[in-house]
Structures are given as structure tokens and as C-alpha cells.
């Protein structure tokens, strides 16, 4: 047991750190620093830099463009991205659909869709949740009926409503779970379809979330015609793809590196902000206690993640400890957001979205803190709520 990095790993850290410093898009940096809304091009600018370098999809198999990095290298990479405050690249194509495609897709489907994901040419969104199907995802009702059209080809005619579709307003394509067999058991009648968002019958309607942002959408599907060759894996076996997607990329889900960085920022704020007694907030007994407890919890999570990585690299696969990463990771993210909001005091209140960024109200670091807190409540709800995660651990790990 040791925590030492090899000289090769140290050199790797230097290399990736230098690359990020030299190649991070300056316009994206400026907008992030000013807490300005990001355009589609902003999101993709960093993605494209990484794609060109060959580093956009470290976890993919090498034959599809993966880096072949060891788990430790991936850990270093995530640390360096967080250290540089680099924008998290969009997960929908690279982390979610990509693995489903190379695991379950036909050769033709891989050739058709993987390069667009890799290069950031096609923006993907995820059509899973429905108004009546949240935690009970398998109850989804969006219907896909198979027909033979006048052109002699087979199509699915898809109708229904998807919701919480993140950044669908920018999406070129979406991957959807649809019901192809309404008579069988819920999980058994679902198929995994790729749908061109420009198809007639697809409507995207914004949902404004409580912090005022437009991140998620309703997606209405009204008799959308989808070629049968856009189905991944077998008909009625889409649940297999959906489950594989949820289980993928367990490491990284904890967000340890970003939380460490964000906690550092909270400490910086608390060194600047004054307490009631006139000293720095960081010297305030109850505040520093919360910071210390958070740091300790985060350290525990970091070592749980490292144990998971070690299990992966030794070929044993992630142990049961990996199942707790989502729960603890999101709880910690939320507590950091909470502390940041506490730390900024009065200047948590101004709502500056519609006020020009040249207008300075309060300290720069206070801008966006409340928004992040409100928006961050999503993390314990999405990706299988933390209550559902507990159900999964109870069943899969504890055998209850």
C-alpha cells in the first residue's frame, strides 16, 4: 500500500497541466470567469480542442479513440481539469451514448455515429424521463409503432413526451427510450432509438429552473418517423442498453477533484469575508467546523474512489464501495454550494442574470453562488435519485 506516483505519472501530470494551460479557449475562460451564459459554440470549443489532441474520450477502447490511460492517469487527468477550472465536457455523447454504441451497436452504427460524438460535430441529448416516469423509469409510455412505409422501408412512428432533457435546445440528435411492446412486462418492451431532432414532429419547449437558468426542456414527439436502422441493439431490449449506460463511468461520478477545487474556493471566500466579530469568516468557530467536516468527508470519498480505481486497475473490477460514490459525491457537492452561499453573506441575494456584466455589484466571487446552490439541488435527484441509489445498494450490494 502506498500513495506514490511513479516518475512516469508525474511526467504525465506535467504534460497534461501544460496542455490545458496552453490550449484552453480564452473566450470560454473569460465567459466562465464572468459567469456569463455559454453558447453552443462555447461548450464545443473545449471539446474540439480535446478531440483534436485525442483526449476527449479517455475511457473509450483504444480502437474507437480512447487514450489507453491507466486508472491512475485518468485520476490525474480529472484532477488537472478541476485544478484548471476547465469546463466539464458534455457527457451525453462521450460518456453516455458512446459506450452504448461501441458495446451494443452494429459496425455500421459505430461508423456512422461515433466520429460525430468524438469530434463534437453532433450534439446529443438524452430522452429518458417522462412526466409520469421518473424514478420508475421502466413505466415510460412514449410509444413507438413499427410500420412499413410507402417507400417499402420500415420505420417506427414515435409519439409521447420526454422531460428534463438537458440542453436539448442545442441538440442535433437524441437517444430515446421508447415502448415498442405495450403488452409485455415494463422492462421487456422498451427499445433504444436514435432520433434526429430536426425530424418533423419533434418540439423542444424550455423549462426554466428555479435559479432562472434554461438547462432542461420538455421534448414532444408527435408521430415522429424514425428509420428502424436507428435502433440500437434488439427490439424490446433497450433496457439492457439503458442499464449499461447508468452503470458506466462510475468513477468520476463522485466529482472529487471538482469538489476539492470548489472547497478551496469556499476557503478563499471565507478568508476575505468578514465575520460579525471583524475577523475572517474562516476563523469563525461554527463556519470552520463545517469546512473541516466537509474536508474530512471529501477525503474519505477521495480514498473510496481511489480504492475503486485500484480495484479496476488490478482487474478485480469496482468493489461494492463504488456504489456509494454517487450518493456521497452529490451530498458533498451540495454541502459545498451551501457553504459558499453562507460565506458570501449579503451578496448572495442580488439576482444579476439580466444585469450587464460590466455592472459590478458585490464581490466577483459572490456572483452565481446562489444560482449554483439552487441549481445544485438537482444532483441528488438526477441519474437515479439518492433514494433510488439506496434501493439499488440495498438490493445489489447488501442483498436485501
Amino acid at each position, binding site marked *: *500500500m502506498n500513495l506514490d506516483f511513479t516518475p512516469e505519472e508525474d511526467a504525465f501530470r506535467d504534460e497534461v497541466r501544460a496542455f490545458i494551460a496552453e490550449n484552453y479557449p480564452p473566450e470560454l475562460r473569460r465567459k466562465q470567469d464572468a459567469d456569463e451564459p455559454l453558447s453552443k459554440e462555447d461548450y464545443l470549443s473545449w471539446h474540439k480542442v480535446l478531440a483534436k489532441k485525442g483526449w476527449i474520450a479517455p475511457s473509450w477502447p483504444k480502437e474507437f479513440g480512447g487514450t489507453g490511460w491507466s486508472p491512475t492517469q485518468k485520476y490525474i487527468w480529472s484532477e488537472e481539469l478541476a485544478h484548471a477550472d476547465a469546463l466539464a465536457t458534455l457527457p451525453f455523447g462521450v460518456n453516455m451514448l458512446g459506450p452504448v454504441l461501441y458495446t451494443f451497436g452494429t459496425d455500421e452504427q459505430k461508423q456512422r455515429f461515433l466520429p460525430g460524438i468524438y469530434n463534437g460535430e453532433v450534439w446529443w441529448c438524452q430522452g429518458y424521463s417522462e412526466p409520469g416516469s421518473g424514478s420508475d423509469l421502466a413505466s415510460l409510455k412514449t410509444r413507438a409503432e413499427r410500420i412499413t412505409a410507402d417507400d417499402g422501408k420500415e420505420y417506427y412512428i414515435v409519439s409521447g413526451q420526454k422531460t428534463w432533457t438537458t440542453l436539448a435546445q442545442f441538440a442535433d440528435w437524441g437517444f430515446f427510450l421508447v415502448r415498442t411492446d405495450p403488452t409485455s412486462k415494463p422492462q421487456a418492451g422498451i427499445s433504444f432509438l436514435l432520433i434526429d431532432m430536426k425530424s418533423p414532429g419533434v418540439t423542444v419547449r424550455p423549462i426554466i429552473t428555479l435559479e432562472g437558468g434554461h438547462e432542461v426542456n420538455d421534448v414532444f414527439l408527435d408521430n415522429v418517423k424514425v428509420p428502424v436502422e436507428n435502433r440500437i441493439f434488439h427490439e424490446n431490449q433497450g433496457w439492457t442498453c439503458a442499464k449499461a449506460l447508468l452503470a458506466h463511468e462510475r468513477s468520476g461520478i463522485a466529482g472529487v477533484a471538482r469538489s476539492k477545487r470548489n472547497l478551496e474556493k469556499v476557503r478563499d471566500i471565507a478568508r476575505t469575508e468578514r465575520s460579525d466579530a471583524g475577523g475572517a469568516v474562516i476563523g469563525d468557530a461554527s463556519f470552520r467546523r463545517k469546512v473541516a467536516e466537509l474536508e474530512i468527508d471529501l477525503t474519505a470519498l477521495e480514498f*473510496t474512489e481511489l480504492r475503486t480505481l485500484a480495484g479496476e486497475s488490478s482487474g478485480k473490477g469496482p468493489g461494492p464501495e463504488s456504489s456509494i460514490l454517487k450518493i456521497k459525491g452529490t451530498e458533498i457537492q451540495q454541502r459545498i454550494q451551501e457553504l459558499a452561499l453562507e460565506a458570501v453573506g449579503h451578496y448572495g441575494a442580488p439576482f444579476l442574470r439580466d444585469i450587464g456584466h460590466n455592472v459590478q455589484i458585490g464581490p466577483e466571487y459572490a456572483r452565481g453562488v446562489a444560482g449554483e446552490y439552487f441549481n445544485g439541488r438537482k444532483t441528488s435527484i438526477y441519474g437515479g435519485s439518492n433514494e433510488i441509489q439506496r*434501493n439499488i445498494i440495498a438490493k445489489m450490494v447488501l442483498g436485501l
Partner: protein
Amino acid sequence: MDFSFTDEQSMLRDTVASYLADNYGFDQRRNVVAKEPGWNPNVWKAFAEELGILGAPFPEDLGGLGGGPVENMIVMEEFGKALVVEPYLSTVVIAGGFLKHSGHPSAAELIGKIIAGQAVFAFAYAEPQGRYNLADLTTTAKKDGGGWVLNGHKAVVAAAPWATHLIVTARTGGGQRDAQGISAFIVEKDAVGVTTRDYPTVDEGRASEVFLENVKVPAEALIGPEGRGLPLIEKVVDEALAATCAEACGVLRKLHEGTLEYTKQRKQFGVPISSFQVLQHRMVDMFIALEQSVSMTYMATIKVSDDAERAKAVAGAKVQIGKACRFVGQSAIQLHGGMGMTDEMAIGHYFKRATMIESAFGNTDHHLARYEFLSLGQAA
């Protein structure tokens, strides 16, 4: 980075686990702790002679197994699972630590006796007024010719009734809470002037109030530097804390496993109570607390040898372990219902040990304050 165990380490774990499975069952232990002397010298003999584990963290040229903190962790975790009362911690980890780090002239000889099972140590550091402050000492050691004379009252000295030797912390100078003026001494327990009042502890160990009245010891009883002994004491206590965290992991694992097993068997409303979601979620949270404790114990065990990172690592680990001991322990009793309240079931005994570990060498508040200082600097 590497979290795997060597073949020798895995073998050590298997050896300890299988010995305890055969010789340290719950009923066997119950019989031993219920009567005098409260421990089993034959088990200690077996540790020395059959298993060789009393040499686990000592160099091979002194007759040890050549291990270190990881070996202590492995042994202590298995001890936690079996609620072992025999004084590995105070003898091998603490006295062994003092002897290894101090370069004491008799170190090799005493380590040899420890490995052979002939010397049993208790660590007399706490005092009635001092709470968890290692520097709060009223026990004095005054120069007396070539040697020293010790006077004072040491509180709740674990394993003292079984000990052949004590390690005693005392003031050789300075005021009651000064960091300077602290020294450590090896005192033979049968030395003239040492008296003890022995008693059982709530977790079925044994301890003593130790009274030192004009105890004369020779010059070489001093272990570590005179007057500047606090850093050595802190280092050894941090090693003891890391080992205690490992013991806690064993205790917590049994608390969690026992609770899973019980709730699967116990039926109410016609079904096993483990089918109730509110209980399932509680057991998942217990599982999370356990796994996070294992992670922190690994972290502390790896960093305990690094003097720059040791204190913060150990303080952080003890906070995690202290919280987990309380939450998992209390939850285990709650989920066992009335049966959890009985002396008959093992679960309550694990809960009692977990509760004592919470405050061992400083409770959660103590180590949180320590961590705060190390991470965030002085409070306002």
C-alpha cells in the same frame, strides 16, 4: 498508487482470522472476560509462539516480521472483528513505537521480550484532570542522583492489570500544560511505590488507576529526549490512533453484518423486517459510514509514517471513525429492537467497544478541533 496487500500481508490476515475463528469465539471470549484475570495468557502465548504476530511491525533483525503500520492495521482489524481484549495495542503498537523511534539502549532487548510474549506494556498517559490533552500533566519526575523519582496519578490505564511494564508520561519541567518539559519513562510495574486500583471497563477490558509514590527508576528508564518528549508521544499516539481506527473497521463491519443478518431473519407483519425500505436505507447509510471509515483508515495508515502529513491524516480519520462508531453502533442496536438490548447477543458488545473507541485517544470533537487547527489555522 497501490492499495493492494502483499502475499505476506494477506497471509498474516488469514493466519490471524483463522486462529481467532477457532479460539476466540463469542462464548470463549465471554468466559475469559467474565473472570480474573480478564484476559487469556494462553492466547497471548499463542500470538507470540504460534502466530508470531507480536513481532508484526518490528524489523527482522530484532526477530520481527519486518512490517509496519499496514501490518498493525491488518492485525487490529481482525482483532476488532473478534473483540480481542489482549493488549496488542499498548504493547506492540505503543510500547513498540516508543522503543523503535527512541533509539533507547535497551530497545532491542525489550522488543525481543515483547515479540516473545514476555513483556506486556500499558500506556499510562492520561490523568484525571487532563482530558485528551497529552501535555496536561501533573505527574512529576525529578532527578535523583543518577536516576529519577516519579510521583503522580495516572487515570484509566488500559491493560495495566496485566502489564509487566508501564510507559509513563511525566513532567520533568515546565507548567501543567506546557509543551516543553515532558518526558516518557519505562517503569516496571512491580517497582516499589507503584500501586494500582484495578477494575473492568464497560467494554469488557481491564484498566487501572495507577498511583506513583516516590517511585525510583534508573537513568535509563527515560525513553526519548528529556523534557522534549512530546513530539515522540504525539507520534506514537497517532500510530495508536491509526491502529485503533483499524480495530474500529473490524467492529463496524461486524455491527453492520450482524444487523443485516438479524433483519433478514426477524419477521414482523408476516415478512422479514429487512424488506422495509426505511430499514434498508438505514443499513445502506451504515454501509456507507463503514466503507468511508475503511477508506480513511487506509489513508491514515499510509500517511502515519510521514511526519509532515501524519497529524492531520490521523485526526481526520478519527473524526470519521468516531462518527461512524456512534451512528453504526446506535443504528445496530435500534434495528435489533429489544434483542439489541440484551447481554446475550454479541451486537451489544460490539456497540460497547465501538462507543469506547469513539473517545479513545481523543473523541470526535477533540480531533475535529485538531484537524481544524492543522487545516485552517488558529481560530479567530
